[in-house]
């Protein structure tokens, strides 16, 4: 071998080693994870849909700013695909079909209004698409719907502690009137409220329903107020309609107590009802993101949300942000975006979320643990602002904590 002659392979190997040393392991391929968000983005329940989308946007942007969602060896950028179903079950089914068969999503995180959830589930369950929603109704959760999760407390978790609180703290209330829309979530809410109220010894003097989109409540209120209730519970009425009911009840001379078992987005209620008609409305579902009763993470979320959208978020925005957070954490835990693996990871343990320690339970009500459980905060509207007055636990969470 001649002196000074180099083997050409050594140089090449050195270059490769140096390159690997500088670059480290091969970068994970960046992929796109498409996630569907449904909701009423127009019509009387539009505020629900707007909050759902915003909650999802907030978490998706946080993930993207942090460099994407790292799952196994892959990094995903989040892409939201949003459809408006106008609170119509038929439109919701069409939108779900589009999401699942056209856009090929495996996750729909966000939907509201009970009947639309039933419609969406006819598509998501057979296709094993994971679905988180804030719809109310006992039939939205069950052993036959293992891919469905409710990310917000429903009337079945909230009504009993709410009416128990009322019985203990407001004993003058004896006669109760309830009004809700005449669809799945409305009827189910009325049922839950009536069951809770009667179970605690209240006299339910009126149980009324109305068509979503109604503007004139004088006729139904005339009938209700003739029964002279001590409490008018605008149970499952969305904020705009709840505001009109309370405004018109006041015009018709109602001066009793006001409840809103499914109350979300009180700012909209106050803007429609006016400060006087909204005064004193109690709600067990609503949330004041600035309150000391809520987790510090909720307060931080509220600040960021207000900075971005110039509005204070309601519970639906927080719930969908939380659902997005839990689902994506479960993907990381599973190391996969395959729904079967994510489902197993999701139901295996509590997750630390915007709600604090989030428990997924309520098998005793639905036959399967698919309900997000967290403490109930009872709030009251005072001078147009929401003031939290007490924290109580839903029975299902109490049972799990024992």
């Amino acid at each position: 071998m001649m002196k000074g002659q180099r083997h050409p392979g050594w140089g090449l190997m050195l270059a490769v080693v140096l390159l690997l040393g500088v670059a480290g392991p091969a970068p994970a391929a960046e992929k796109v994870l498409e996630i569907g968000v449904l909701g009423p983005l127009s019509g009387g329940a539009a505020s629900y849909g707007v909050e759902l989308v915003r909650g999802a946007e907030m978490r998706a942007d946080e993930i993207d700013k942090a460099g994407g969602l790292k799952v196994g060896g892959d990094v995903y950028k989040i892409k939201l695909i949003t459809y408006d179903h106008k609170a119509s079950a038929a439109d919701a089914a069409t939108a779900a079909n589009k999401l699942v068969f056209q856009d090929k999503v495996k996750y729909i995180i966000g939907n509201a209004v009970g009947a639309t959830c039933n419609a969406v589930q006819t598509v998501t369950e057979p296709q094993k698409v994971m679905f988180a929603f804030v719809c109310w109704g006992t039939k939205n959760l069950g052993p036959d719907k293992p891919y469905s999760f409710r990310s917000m407390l429903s009337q079945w978790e909230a009504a009993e502690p709410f009416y128990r609180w009322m019985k203990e703290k407001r004993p003058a209330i004896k006669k109760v009137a309830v009004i809700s829309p005449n669809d799945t979530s409305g009827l189910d809410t009325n049922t839950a409220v009536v069951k809770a109220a009667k179970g605690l010894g209240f006299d339910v003097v009126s149980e009324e329903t109305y068509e979503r989109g109604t503007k004139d409540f004088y006729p139904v209120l005339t009938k209700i107020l003739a029964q002279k209730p001590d409490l008018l519970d605008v149970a499952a009425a969305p904020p705009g309609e709840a505001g009109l009911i309370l405004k018109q009840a006041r015009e018709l001379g109602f001066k009793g107590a006001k409840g809103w078992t499914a109350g979300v987005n009180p700012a909209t209620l106050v803007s429609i009802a006016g400060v006087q008609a909204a005064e004193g409305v109690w709600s067990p579902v609503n949330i004041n993101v600035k309150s000391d009763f809520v987790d510090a993470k909720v307060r931080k979320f509220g600040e960021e949300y207000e900075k971005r959208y110039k509005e204070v978020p309601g519970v639906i925005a927080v719930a969908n942000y939380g659902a997005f957070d839990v689902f994506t954490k479960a993907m990381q835990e599973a190391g996969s975006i395959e729904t079967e693996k994510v489902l197993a990871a999701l139901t295996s343990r509590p997750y630390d979320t915007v709600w604090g320690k989030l428990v997924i339970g309520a098998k005793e009500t639905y036959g399967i643990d698919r309900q997000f459980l967290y403490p109930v905060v009872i709030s009251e509207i005072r001078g147009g602002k929401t003031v939290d007055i007490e924290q109580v636990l839903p029975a299902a969470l109490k049972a799990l904590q024992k």
Partner: protein
Amino acid sequence: MPVELLVQALLNGFALALVYVLVALGLTLIFSILEIINFAHGEFYMLGGYVTYFAFAVFGLSYVPTLLLAIVVVGLAGVVAERMIFRHLRGKTLNAFIVSLGLLWVIQSGAQLSFGVLDKSVPSAFSGILRAGGIIISVERFVVILAAAGLIAVLYTFLQWSRLGRAMRAVAQDADGAALQGVNIEVISMLGFAIGCALAGAAGGLLAPVFAVSPAMGALPVVKAFIIIIVGGMGSLPGAVLGGLLLGTVEGIGALFFGSAAVNILGFLMVIAVLLVRPRGLFGVA
């Protein structure tokens, strides 16, 4: 059932029915003159609501000038719609039907993009409650009744006794005959469309503080207006008023006995009954 409750129910029904009569009168006026059914008529009602929202709630104009502004602005919007679209479709009922459906979506989607999808609250223009025994009505609704009745009376007077009103009736009866008598059909068409839209704008302006405004708010009044027109008879002003009062009675009393969810069904049952027994409506001409 106490009599007071029945009277209250009737009053509830009449208060809104009179406003829907305004919408119906606009619709029937446009049909009479241009022979088109404007399905986008509810969107002019919605525009009246938004003019009221911006003038009264945002810019702080007082209510009466606001209502006049809503009438003028929506009337002008009607002029634009007639000049640009509907004058070319006079007498072409099917074409106008399709175009008006398209216009409905254009205006509604435009409102969604411009004003957002959420309900916007308009503060009450008149506060307080009027009581007579057990009968209660808010001052706000009482003013709405008076204003709607006043506008109906003004329209009746205009059509019955003014030169332009007579020209409109002439065009409605026989456009060719009216043209031979020197009536300018194009001007009358434009004026009829503008007045029809202005009435819808007035209705929107009257109900904006009672409810709230939203891009989809025009859907319900236009359905009620169609019920009123079919029951009262297409093209008949007294028919529209009677149709409105009947609808108010049926809805007000019906809500007491069958619940509010059944109210919409009752209106359509009334339409079916009228169409079976008297297809031209109570005051319509065969």
